[in-house]
């Protein structure tokens, strides 16, 4: 595809359930990012991969959040034992380069609602 895709687009989970969110970056993009966007706020950084290596996970809010990119392309963000405060839009972005000046291209996001 031409852009970053994410699935599912919407996810409703009961408190305590585990969820997995998928991101397909633009083909050939080295860098991949996950952000969390709460209602009425700007996106907040969660984690960053360069190829399959997770170089920065400083933004993950707790050990219930886990991300992987095993083959350096598709990535999955997993949230265990979801809580109501996890409700947000989860954005994935990819970038062609490894440098900070590279443009990050965003997917449409997955809206997670935890009941």
């Amino acid at each position: 595809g031409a852009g970053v895709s994410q699935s599912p687009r919407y996810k409703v989970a009961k408190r305590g359930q585990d969820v997995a969110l998928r991101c397909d970056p633009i083909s050939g993009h080295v860098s991949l990012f996950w952000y969390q966007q709460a209602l009425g706020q700007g996106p907040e950084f969660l984690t960053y991969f360069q190829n399959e290596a997770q170089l920065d996970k400083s933004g993950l809010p707790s050990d219930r959040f886990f991300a992987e990119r095993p083959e350096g392309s598709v990535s999955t963000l997993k949230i265990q034992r979801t809580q109501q405060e996890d409700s947000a839009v989860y954005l994935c972005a990819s970038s062609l380069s490894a440098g900070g000046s590279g443009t990050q291209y965003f997917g449409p996001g997955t809206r997670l609602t935890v009941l």
Partner: protein
Amino acid sequence: AQSVTQLDSQVPVFEEAPVELRCNYSSSVSVYLFWYVQYPNQGLQLLLKYLSGSTLVESINGFEAEFNKSQTSFHLRKPSVHISDTAEYFCAVTSQEPGRRALTFGSGTRLQVQP
């Protein structure tokens, strides 16, 4: 660490009027600066970015932003807005340090263009 402040959460403006969306940042290191736009029901798209060189940068749809290092600002301007410019605008920065790729976003400014 960096922080971004967008003081105006909403900016109503009439069509064909000029507009300025304010962005101030704080950082202990040099940064790259970005403006992203989110149209209704769409994902984040890069509008323009400042990496180095001329402090005035322009987008293809008539927006411009000027990097002011002394005032740590990167305000976005357009001399004449259209209805189609109605969207949420996010200012963002990232460190120029190697390995630091995370974008830090402001809370966004909703531009509402009225006929």
